């Protein structure tokens, strides 16, 4: 009888302890999405007015031979990304100009689907587009995060200043946005998530308003 009582009590306790494991968690892909932004506090964005935007989004896929044109993200996604950036920049009061018309900032979007990288990738990825000298980026006064994990995709949007190259001829990245999430689901689902992420990146960066 005594043994039965103890066994019963221990069983109840065990059930209780086990039932406490994971009470909940993400159920949908978009619940894993993160939008990160950072900027250089020494930059006066209100003093700038014009920007240029390429017509493609680079796919970061490994080392390139200098001068080689990198792989591009599918136009289905690239047009959505570029259109959203354009919409947000224009609504913040910026004016788009051609890259050859000395824009105040050049916005460079890129995406990655591989493991263990950082946003410190070499600037020569943009050699085919970027009309200014400088072969690398630097981040004045802040440090973007390391992006790791092979199950993820990340979209980077870098706002660079072509007119103030650093001491080592590197180009300052004055604002960065990173969208990180799972690359799963349908095309339309991913497009919706990209839209939301780009909008969110600008929403949480009100200092970009003119």
């Amino acid at each position, binding site marked *: 009888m*005594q043994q039965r*009582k*103890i066994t019963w*009590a*221990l069983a*109840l*306790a065990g059930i*209780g*302890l086990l*039932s*406490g*494991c*994971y*009470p*909940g*968690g*993400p159920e949908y892909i978009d*619940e*894993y*999405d*993160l*939008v*990160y*932004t*950072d*900027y*250089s*506090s020494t930059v006066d964005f209100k003093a700038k007015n014009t920007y240029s935007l390429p017509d493609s989004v680079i796919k970061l896929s490994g080392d390139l031979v200098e001068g080689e044109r990198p792989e591009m993200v599918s136009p289905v996604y690239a047009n959505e990304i570029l259109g959203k950036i354009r919409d947000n920049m224009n609504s913040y009061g910026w004016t788009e100009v051609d890259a050859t018309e000395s824009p105040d900032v050049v916005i460079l979007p890129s995406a990655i689907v591989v493991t263990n990288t950082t946003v410190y990738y070499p600037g020569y990825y943009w050699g085919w587009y970027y009309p200014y000298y400088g072969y690398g980026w630097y981040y004045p*006064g*802040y440090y973007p995060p390391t992006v790791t*994990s092979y*199950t*993820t995709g990340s979209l980077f949007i870098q706002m660079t200043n072509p007119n103030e190259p650093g001491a080592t001829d590197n180009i300052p990245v004055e604002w960065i946005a990173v969208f*990180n*999430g*799972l690359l799963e689901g349908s095309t339309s689902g991913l497009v919706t998530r990209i839209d939301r992420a780009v909008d*969110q990146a600008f929403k*949480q*960066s009100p200092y970009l308003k003119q």
Partner: protein
Amino acid sequence: MKAKLLSICLLALAGSTATAQDDFMMVNYQVGFPMGELQSYIEKTSWRGINIGYRHLIDGEIAVGVDLSTQVFYEQKDYDTYTRGTASLTGTQYRYSWNTPMTAHIDYVLGEGKDLRPFIGMGLGALYSYRVTDFGLYRITQDPWQFIMVPEVGVTYYMSAGSALFVSAKYNAAFDSKDMGGQSYIGLNVGVLFSTN
């Protein structure tokens, strides 16, 4: 580590009840209300908790024993932006906190010989807290040990000579550890107590 400690405690309880006199075991369902630093991390009430305990009556009014309990707190935060310096991060946070106090108790029990016996008590021991924050595809974990004091007030209602209903409220007052504030919470217990004699 947690599982090993739990096994040792349960074995100790099982072993000690075999020969003792005036010994009681209790099993309680526990609702947890976060307080202090824990409340600032997770505001929601926890409905997932259990407490098991053992008491030995030294005389008719003083009881000593041990408690082992666990309480799981969880909250899904809204899709929101967290800003630190110039950096902003937006996403959905999932916050978990498992808390396992292991305490030695002394109780003063009133109403000797009556069916209804209120008591007040105090427990001292250690709290193992395990905190998980899931944010996007990233996970941050912390698992401090903290010193804990557990004042308790409650009542037992004896339905027969060897078994009683048990209701109590106890304040699990945890002290700050090196990297985390005290993971304190109030536990409301409802359960049964039975003699193992």
